């Protein structure tokens, strides 16, 4: 069986930021003082300038990092920083408008949504709404929408204050996820910890301020939802708070599939997205030992493991290495941030694992979506062995420093 195991040796990390490594230490000192316990909460990539990342950190700061210049960072204006946890960060990614293409939005618990100019680091605008905390933000080309602890608030991007209108009825709890359709700026979805996901359609509506008119559909999950997004233009994914993923058809809000179990020992879902480079649905799952599994959804009930990354463990700080963010920055690199403040770039090489996968039909790793757990015991054993083996291999060959 050993020869059949998919094996991916991450020997080619391109850049490695670590506060304990001597390499590029000065950058990290700028990011987080050693031992401060701060780390990046969110990482976003500027799709118009792919070498630029924006980080929202636990010390409420926002910085831009340029990967071309060995990770040099530019901090945004300190005086304008948020004063509480940042809950969402987004690039506007609008290349058609020369002003909007430099815009970054951030939503925070402190009751503000800030609009930043990435060139100057200035907070161009600070939006508030009755001091309610903001949990999510998204924009299409003309409207900024942000979610509070029970409302959706809309602003016109040309005339920031006051809000255009608010939707008070759709949710009763924190609106944790908001997404405009990637191609249709009139379609919006929102999800919340009250278990609901609402879908709005603004096209041709005379009174967009009345949510009765725009509310197209509601999906009720059995679990609180913590994030949502579009998949393939006609589907929606949502991550629940107990680390499962639900995929729903946009058209009639029927459940397409649910990912409830992972073939490996994954403790939590880091994120999922439609891979820009393969257009497959990729799921990133991590566990408390600092391991990352990357799956692709093959079809309705088949998950393929395409890659995995194992971070070195520090036995004194066993939970230090928890991966909080993953981001594919280009077709062969993936950025990770961990709870010890590191930002690491790994080579993403799914082909290796996939090629091996084809051979390893004996080893049935796929499974484990909802109802298909009949041969669970057998599979689990195989997986246990597989995981154990994998670790040994990694332990020998994995030398990041």
């Amino acid at each position, binding site marked *: 069986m050993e020869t059949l195991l998919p094996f991916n040796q991450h020997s080619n990390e391109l850049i490695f930021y670590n506060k304990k490594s001597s390499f590029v230490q000065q950058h990290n000192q700028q990011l987080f003082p050693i031992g401060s316990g701060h780390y990046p909460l969110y990482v976003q990539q500027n799709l118009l300038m792919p070498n630029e990342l924006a980080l929202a950190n636990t010390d409420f700061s926002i910085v831009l990092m340029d990967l071309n210049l060995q990770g040099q960072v530019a901090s945004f204006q300190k005086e304008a920083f948020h004063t509480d946890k940042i809950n969402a960060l987004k690039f506007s990614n609008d290349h058609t408008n020369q002003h909007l293409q430099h815009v970054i939005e951030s939503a925070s618990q402190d009751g503000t949504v800030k609009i930043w100019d990435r060139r100057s680091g200035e907070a161009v605008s600070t939006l508030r709404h009755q001091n309610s905390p903001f949990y999510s933000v998204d924009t299409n080309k003309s409207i900024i929408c942000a979610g509070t602890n029970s409302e959706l608030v809309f602003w016109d991007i040309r005339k920031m204050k006051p809000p255009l209108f608010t939707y008070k009825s759709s949710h009763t709890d924190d609106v944790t996820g908001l997404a405009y359709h990637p191609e249709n700026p009139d379609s919006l979805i929102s999800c919340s*910890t009250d*278990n609901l996901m*609402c879908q709005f359609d603004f096209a041709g509506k005379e009174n967009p301020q009345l949510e009765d008119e725009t*509310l197209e559909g509601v999906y009720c999950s059995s679990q609180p939802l913590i994030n949502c997004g579009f998949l393939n233009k006609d589907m929606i994914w949502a991550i629940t*708070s107990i680390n499962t993923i639900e995929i729903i058809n946009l058209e009639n809000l029927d459940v397409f599939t649910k990912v409830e179990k992972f073939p490996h020992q994954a403790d939590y879902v880091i994120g999922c997205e439609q891979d820009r480079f393969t257009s497959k649905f990729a799921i990133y799952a991590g566990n408390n030992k600092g391991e990352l599994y990357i799956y692709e959804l093959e079809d309705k009930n088949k998950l393929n493991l395409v890659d995995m990354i194992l971070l070195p463990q520090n036995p004194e700080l066993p939970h230090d290495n928890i991966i909080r963010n993953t981001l594919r920055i280009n077709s062969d690199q993936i950025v990770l941030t961990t709870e010890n403040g590191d930002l690491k770039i790994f080579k993403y090489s799914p082909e290796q694992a996939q090629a091996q996968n084809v051979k390893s039909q004996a080893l049935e790793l796929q499974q484990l979506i909802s109802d298909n757990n009949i041969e669970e015991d057998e599979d689990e054993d195989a997986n246990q062995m597989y995981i154990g083996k994998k670790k040994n291999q990694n332990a020998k060959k994995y030398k990041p420093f």
Partner: protein
Amino acid sequence: MSKLTQAQITEAINTILADKKKRKFLETVELQVGLKDYDPQKDKRFAGTVRLPNIPRPKLKICLIGDAKHMQIVKENNIAIDAVDFDFLKTFNKDKKLIKSWAKKYTILLATDTLVKKIPTVLGPILNRIGMFPQVVTHNDDLKAKVDDARASIKFQLKKATCMNVAIGNESQSEEELRQNILMGINFLVSLLKKGWHNLKSVHIKTSMGKPFKIIG
């Protein structure tokens, strides 16, 4: 800190049940949990719904918005819930007050999957607003099981403070049933926490009016 032993829970249950006075209502058994090493400013959101093995709140009123097939199932099997059909909803004519006063009679609403999509168009967002949007039942689901699921599910949610309180049973349940519920609840919580049992600072159980009893901490 180690895992809970059965004896610990049994002792706790016996203590709180012995300690209570007679009240004019059925007292609930509550689970109170305090967390440590958990920073709401940094750590991931902590929430979830868990289905307990034994129904903690048997009297919850449930109403089904059903199609013909589901209505028939309710009648034939004598399931103890109210059931209305879709035309009934139309009689509200989008009158928010009427909808609200009707829905507020119940704790949980259920609806057939084909109908649930039409509800926002007929009733508007009012059900969302009062937090009563119906849970979906399909024809493949066992309706009775679904009703029990709805009754037996409890929701954990951590807001800003690192402690929370949920109903986990009632005083009429046997010690065995309570123990199962408590174990299930705590195990579920622990499974969601980054450091598992190390994140638990304290766990108490109490009856609605009684004194709390410490299980962990």
